């Protein structure tokens, strides 16, 4: 069965782009969320195999959402996808429990490689 992925990004364009990469490579999009709070709710509802998480979002940012999801499910697999790739941002994300960090704008191969590695 194909792995189910929750896409979290406030930009509908980015969600569409990631969705395109995932479906092309045989993954199933479990659901989409446009902010951190929605991501936490959707995670509870759909229990995805993996989450792609933006950082800068309204209501609840991606770092806070990672913490909340990991509190519910310590084995949650989350990859951060952010335009802000500075060292302190990466460190914060990894400390919160993210497994990898992809800097936008990204290439399809980089996204798929990260997903394969985290799901392995």
């Amino acid at each position, binding site marked *: 069965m194909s792995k189910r992925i929750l896409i979290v990004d406030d*930009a509908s*364009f980015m969600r569409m782009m990631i969705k395109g990469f995932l479906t092309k490579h045989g993954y199933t999009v479990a659901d989409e969320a446009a902010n951190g709070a929605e991501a936490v709710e959707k995670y509870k509802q759909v229990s995805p195999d993996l989450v792609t998480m933006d950082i*800068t979002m309204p209501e609840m940012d991606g770092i806070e959402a990672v913490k909340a999801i990991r509190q519910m499910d310590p084995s949650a697999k989350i990859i951060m996808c952010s*335009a802000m*790739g*500075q060292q302190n941002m990466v460190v914060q994300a990894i400390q919160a429990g993210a497994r990898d960090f992809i800097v*936008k*704008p990204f290439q399809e191969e980089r996204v798929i490689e990260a997903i394969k590695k985290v799901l392995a």
Partner: protein
Amino acid sequence: MQANQINAILSGTRGVLENHLGMQVMPGKPSMQMNPIFSGQVSVIVGMTGTLKVDLILGMTQKSVCAIIGKMFGGMEVQEIDDMGWSAFSEFGNWVGAACCTELINSGYEVNITPPIINEGESKFRSVHRFISIPFQVEENEIMVHISAQQA
């Protein structure tokens, strides 16, 4: 405004257009702008806060926006901007802001971006701060890059 600040912002903006979107960019002659700053048909406004406060305005024609989002959609020809197109253009502003932040951080500043704001329709911006304006010839289109930076 210092030269290294302006160069970092120009380099970040140019990097997104050239390296990520594969567009050819030819910067023109910079000029100091007095009020008002003309927006162009569409502009995206990106703010940076921290040890440096930056306002970056990219003003352009609707045709330039279509060219940019066409590249973001993987080389599609875009004639009209729909909701997905505006979302892509906002994301373009986000990429430019983040790239400028990276350049500024590499120059020793501590900065973060604010979410981009898009202005649709010809208008004028007025500010107490001076702007430096640089025209970017981006293939057959022109983008006006307006930069204001103040030490916090």
